[in-house]
C-alpha cells in the first residue's frame, strides 16, 4: 500500500510542472480575462463594474453582432468546401497511388504547408490581385476583358483559408482511409455493390471520424484567425478576431476585447459539443 502511495506521489511530481505552467499561463489568464469582460471603459480607465454591458452590446449592436455572423458564415463555408475538395484527393492518394509512393505523394500534397503562414496569405494576395497571375491569365486567354475585384473581398479570404485547410483535411482523411481494412470493400463487392455504391455507403461513412476531426480543427483554427481575413479580406466586413484586434488597437478597450474572446470561445465549445461523438480525442 505504501509502495503504491510512493509511486503515486512520484508520478504526480512528474505531472506537476506541466500543470503549474498550464494553470499559470493559460487557466488563470483566461479567468482574469473572463472577469475583465464584466468591466467597462471610462475614458482610458477600466472600471470593474461586474455587469453584462459588453455582452449586451455584442448581441444588440449590429456592428458587433455582424462580426459573429460574418465569422460563422466564412468558417462554415471554408469547412464545407475544404472537406469536399480534400476527400477525393485523400482517396486518390490512398487507393490509386502505389503504396511505395504514397508517403511521397502525401508529402507533396501538403508541401506548401511549410511556407510561413503570413507569407502564404501574402502570396495569395499576389495571385488574386488586379495585376496578379490569375486575372492576367484569364485576360490573356480571352475569358475576361478586365480584371474582377477579388482582393479585399470575402472570396479572397475564403480562397486563402480553403488552400490551407484542404492540406490539413487531406492529412486527417488520408490517415483515416489507410487504416481501413481492404476487406470492407471486398465484402461490399461480394455482396453485389457497384464501385460507386461501395464508396458512398461503405467507405465514406467509415471515414467520418477523419472528416470530423479535420473539420473541427478547421473550424477552430479558421474562426480564430486574424491574418488571413486581415490580409486578403480587407476591412469591408470584419471577422471576430479582426474586431478584437480593433478594440485593442484603437482605444485599448481590453474589457470589450475580452468579452468578444469569451463569446468566440463559447462558439468553439459549442462546435466541440456538436462534433465530440465523432472526434477520436479520448486517445489523448
Amino acid at each position, binding site marked *: 500500500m505504501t509502495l503504491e502511495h510512493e509511486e503515486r506521489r512520484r508520478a504526480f511530481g512528474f505531472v506537476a*510542472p506541466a500543470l503549474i505552467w498550464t494553470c499559470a499561463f493559460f487557466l488563470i489568464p483566461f479567468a482574469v480575462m473572463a472577469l475583465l469582460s464584466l468591466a467597462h471603459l471610462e475614458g482610458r480607465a477600466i472600471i470593474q463594474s461586474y455587469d453584462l454591458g459588453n455582452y449586451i452590446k455584442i448581441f444588440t449592436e449590429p456592428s458587433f453582432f455582424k462580426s459573429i455572423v460574418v465569422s460563422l458564415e466564412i468558417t462554415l463555408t471554408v469547412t464545407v468546401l475544404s472537406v469536399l475538395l480534400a476527400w477525393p484527393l485523400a482517396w486518390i492518394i490512398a487507393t490509386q497511388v502505389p503504396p511505395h509512393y504514397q508517403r511521397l505523394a502525401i508529402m507533396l500534397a501538403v508541401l506548401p504547408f511549410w511556407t*510561413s503562414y503570413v*507569407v502564404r496569405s501574402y502570396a495569395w494576395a499576389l495571385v488574386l490581385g488586379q495585376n496578379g497571375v490569375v486575372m492576367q491569365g484569364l485576360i490573356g486567354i480571352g475569358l475576361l476583358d478586365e480584371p474582377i475585384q477579388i482582393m479585399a473581398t470575402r472570396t479572397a479570404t475564403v480562397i486563402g483559408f480553403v488552400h490551407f485547410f484542404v492540406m490539413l483535411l487531406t492529412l486527417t482523411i488520408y490517415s483515416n482511409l489507410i487504416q481501413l481494412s481492404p476487406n470492407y470493400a471486398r465484402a461490399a463487392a461480394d455482396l453485389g455493390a457497384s464501385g460507386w455504391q461501395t464508396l458512398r455507403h461503405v467507405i465514406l461513412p467509415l471515414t467520418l471520424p477523419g472528416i470530423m476531426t479535420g473539420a473541427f480543427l478547421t473550424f477552430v483554427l479558421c474562426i480564430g484567425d486574424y491574418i488571413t481575413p486581415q490580409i486578403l479580406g480587407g476591412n469591408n466586413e470584419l471577422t471576430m478576431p479582426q474586431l478584437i484586434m480593433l478594440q485593442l488597437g484603437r482605444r485599448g478597450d481590453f474589457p470589450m476585447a475580452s468579452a468578444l474572446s469569451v463569446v468566440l470561445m463559447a462558439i468553439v465549445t459549442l462546435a466541440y459539443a456538436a462534433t465530440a461523438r465523432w472526434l477520436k480525442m479520448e486517445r489523448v
Partner: protein
Amino acid sequence: MRRLGWIYLIAIFTFIFLPVIVLVLFSFQDSRLPVPPFDGPTLKWYVQVINDRSMMEALRNSAFVAFTSAAIALLLGFLAAQGLSRVILPGSVLMRGLLIAPMTVSYLIIALGLLTVFNNLGIRPSLWATGVGHVVINLPLCFAILFAAMGDHQKNAERAARDLGASELQVVFLISAPMLKPALLAAYFLSVTFSWDEFIIAFLLTRFDVTLPVEIWSMLRSGLSPATNAIGSIVFLVSISLLVLLEITVFRKPKS
C-alpha cells in the same frame, strides 16, 4: 471516371502549388512589383534581404524563441506523459483534459489573456513573454504525441530497470527517452515549426525584439515587393530542408 480523376488531380495540385510558385518565381523579379510579366531573373532582392539588419535580427529572435520554447514544452510534456501513463492518479482524466485544453483555444485568446495578466503585473512585452506563450501552445501537442506513444512494453522495460536498481532519473533519461526517440523528435520538430511560424502571440507580446513573422507583417504594410517574396522563399527553403533531413534521418523505415 479515370480521366475525371486526372483532371481533378491536376486542378487541385495547381490550386495547392499556385501561391508557392508565384511566391518563389517573383522573388527573382527584376522590376519593383512582383506581378506579371516576369522580367528576371535577378538575386538582388535576396541580397537586399540578407543585408537587412532588422530582418536578420528578427530571424535570430525567431530561431531562439522556437528552439528554446520547444525544448521547454518538450520537457514538460514528456514528464507529464511519464507521470500520467505510469499509474492512474485520482483526477487523471481532469489533468489530461487541462493539459490538452489550450489546443482548442485560439492563439489570439491565449495571447490576449497573457497580455492582460502581464499588463496587470507590470511585465513589459518581450521575447521572453512570447516564449512563455509558445510553450503554452506547444505543451499540449508534445504531451499528446508522447502520451500516445507510451505503451506497455515501455512500462515493462522501465519496471525492469527499476528492479535492477536504476534511479528514477536513470530510468527516465536512459530507458524511457531513448525508447521514445522518434516521438520525441517529431514532437520537438513540430513545436519548433509552430513557434517559428506563430504570428499573433508574438505580435501582441513583443515590442522591439520582434520575431520573423511580425517583421514580415510590418513589411507587408509598405505594399507588395519582391523583397517579401525573397524572405518568404528563404523561410520555405529552410523548412523544407529541415523536413527532408528529418524524413531521411528519423522516419526512414528500415528496409525489410
